[in-house]
C-alpha cells in the first residue's frame, strides 16, 4: 500500500508509450508511467510503487514544505529569544 520511492526519469522508452527508465540513487528500473496525466520528460521526478509511477513529484512543493519547516524553526528560535530577553528585564 505504502512503499513509494522517488525516482528520476532517465529516458522515456521509444515505442513503449508507457515505459520509462527511472533512476533511484544510481539503480535503474523500467517503470510504467501509464497513469501519469502530465507529459513526463527526462529529469522529472516520479513516485514509484510496485513498478508503476503513481504521481509526478512536485519539486516546488517539496522546497516550500522544507522552507516552511525552516521558517517554523526560525520563528521558534525568535520566540525563545524574545521570551528570554523579556525575562531579563
Amino acid at each position: 500500500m505504502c512503499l513509494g520511492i522517488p525516482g528520476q526519469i532517465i529516458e522515456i522508452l521509444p515505442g513503449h508509450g508507457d515505459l520509462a527508465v527511472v533512476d533511484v540513487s544510481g539503480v535503474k528500473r523500467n517503470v510504467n508511467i501509464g497513469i501519469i496525466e502530465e507529459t513526463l520528460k527526462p529529469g522529472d521526478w516520479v513516485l514509484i510503487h510496485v513498478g508503476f509511477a503513481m504521481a509526478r513529484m512536485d519539486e516546488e512543493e517539496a522546497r516550500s514544505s522544507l522552507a516552511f519547516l525552516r521558517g517554523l524553526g526560525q520563528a521558534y528560535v525568535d520566540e525563545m529569544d524574545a521570551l528570554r530577553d523579556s525575562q531579563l528585564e
Partner: protein
Amino acid sequence: MRFVDEFRDPELARTLAGQIVALGEPGRHYKFMEVCGGHTHTIYKHGIEDYLPPSITLVHGPGCPVCVIPMGRVDDAIHIAEQPDVILTSFGDMMRVPGGHGSFLDAAAKGADIRMVYSPLDALKIAKQNPSKRVVFMAIGFETTAPSTALTVLKADADGVANFSIFCNHVTIIPAIKAILDSPDLRLDGFIGPGHVSTVIGCEPYRFIARDFGKPLVVSGFEPLDILQSVYMILKQLAEGRCEVENQYTRAVPWAGNARALQAITRVMELRPYFEWRGLGFISHSALKVTDAFAAYDAERIFEIPGVRVADPKACQCGEVLKGVLKPWECKVFGTACTPETPIGTCMVSSEGACAAYYNFGRFTRERVREAART
C-alpha cells in the same frame, strides 16, 4: 537521496518537536491514529516517538492490507497454488502470513510453485515466459496498488496473455476508517491520513471524518519529518478550533487524486457487496473483485476455490490492535505464543503490522532505549 534525506533532517525535527510541545494544551492527553501501516513502519523505523512528548500517543490503525486478509483467503490462494501447472506469484509481504495450515513459504516447502515478485508486471512476464503454466497473481493492497493490478490485467488483455489471472484481494480504505469511527470504545483526537492511497483517491473522500465525526485529518507523507509535521498540523487545528482535512504531502498528493488511476480500477474491478476483514468482521462495499468483462483473468472464476472460513484463535486480539483499542504489548499472546517467528495473527507477521513493528523496533521502553543510545 533526493526527496528523502531532506525529510529526515534531525535539526528540523528538533524545531518541530519544540513547536509540537508548545501547541499542546497543558494537562491534555492526545491520541492520534495513523491509519496506514506504512506510517506505522516509518514511525518505528526512525524512532519518531522519541520526538513526541508523553502527552501524545500514536495509535496504530487498520491500514495494513496484508494484516486484514483472513486466514481462509490465504488457504484459498494456497489451494490455487497446489493445482497442476500453476505458478502463484506474490509480493514478499504475503510469504509468511499464516493461513489455517501454514503460509506460502510452508506451501512452497511442500512443493507448490510460489514465486515472489516486486511488480504485477513481473508476474505477467512470468506468464509470457511459461505458456504451458497458469500464472496467478495474488493481488493485495489498498487503492494505491489496485491501479497497478488493473493496468496489468489490461496489458494482459491487450497482449493476449491467456494464461494469466489475478486472485483479487484488494480492499478500500474509507470503509476501514469508518469501522474505526463507528466503534464505541475509541477515543481519538485526530488522524494521520494515508499518503499513497491519497495519490489515487485524493483528499475529498476524507471530508466526512471532519464534517460528521469532528476529527481533523492530515494526509501525510512517509518520511519522518512528514509525520512530525502532520502531528503539528493536527495540533494546530485543535488549538485554533478548526476541524478539516489538510494535505501535508503536497509534493506527491494532488487534492483531486488521479483520474486515470481511478478509471483503470473501475474498468477492471468493482466493489464486492461485502468482504471479511480479519479482526474487523464483514464490512460492506469494502473490497474489489474482477468485473464480468475481464472474467477470463479472474482466478476466482477459473479455479474452484474452497472458500472455507477459518476462525482466529480466541486468544488472538488482532482485531482490537487493528482498531487501535489495544497496544501490541497489551495483547495476551504478544511475545509469548505470538512472535515474529511464530506469528499467530498477521499483525505480527507483516512487517508493517503494529505488533511486528513494535516487537522489532520498539520493544524496549522508550526511556531505557533512549538512555542507552545517549553518547
